[in-house]
């Protein structure tokens, strides 16, 4: 994904915050536009005020400056179910000794997953959030059954 300029970057941030702000309390951290590499992190605690936090959503993105614009180079979109336990996360970043790979982390409420990373496809932040929000709103615990382990590089 490429954002054509700083204005488009800020617009996208505002759109994401507006969506997340309807689901709970939001924090946005941004390293800013001064450096050629930029990290943005959206944190959502839901439902919050006056209720206890039952779900935490943490979405991180790293961009590189490309002319006037910004190119997305990695992301980590995480959902933590605080009510039942468990974690579901779509990631795209370099793995040790290799290139950036789309993968999924899934930890069920009970026990540990058989592998640390599963196969996944590319997702957009709001696309990932809708999936996580549906899971959270349905009250369904995270289920890792049926996921396929990430193949090692060269396999």
């Amino acid at each position, binding site marked *: 994904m490429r954002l054509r300029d700083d204005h488009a970057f800020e617009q996208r941030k505002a759109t994401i*915050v507006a*969506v*997340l*702000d*309807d*689901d*709970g*309390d*939001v*924090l*946005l*951290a*941004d*390293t*800013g536009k*001064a*450096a050629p*590499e*930029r*990290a943005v*992190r959206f944190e959502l605690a*839901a*439902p*919050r*005020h*006056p*209720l206890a936090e*039952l779900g935490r959503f*943490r979405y*991180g993105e*790293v961009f590189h400056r490309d002319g006037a614009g910004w190119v997305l*180079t*990695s992301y*980590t979109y*995480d959902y*933590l179910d*605080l009510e039942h336990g468990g*974690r579901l*996360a779509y*990631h795209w*970043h*370099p793995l040790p000794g290799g290139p*950036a790979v789309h993968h999924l*982390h899934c*930890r069920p409420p009970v026990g540990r997953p058989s592998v*640390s990373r599963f196969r996944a496809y590319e997702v957009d932040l709001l696309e990932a959030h*809708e999936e996580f*929000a*549906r899971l959270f*709103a*349905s009250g369904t615990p995270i289920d890792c059954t049926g996921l396929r382990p990430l193949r090692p590089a060269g396999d």
Partner: protein
Amino acid sequence: MELTKAFYSPREMAAMVGVHPSTVMAWIHSGRLRAIKLSERTYRIPNKAVVKMLAPELANPPVFIERPDEEVDPHMLDDDSEWIIG
């Protein structure tokens, strides 16, 4: 009015506001009211969206932080350990 549930159905929202459920559905479909679609006929309205409509003064606004000195780490959160809550 005390909003003690994490999510509300359109019917519950309609009763709180004093409108017909179809009005709430129209708000949802127009984007005026946030709702999460669980199935073709099932929607859940988050507590915060209800608070923002009924008592916006109680809603916590988003917090913005600029961290120009923060180290950019593309491997952030890849380790599961940070997410294990004690």
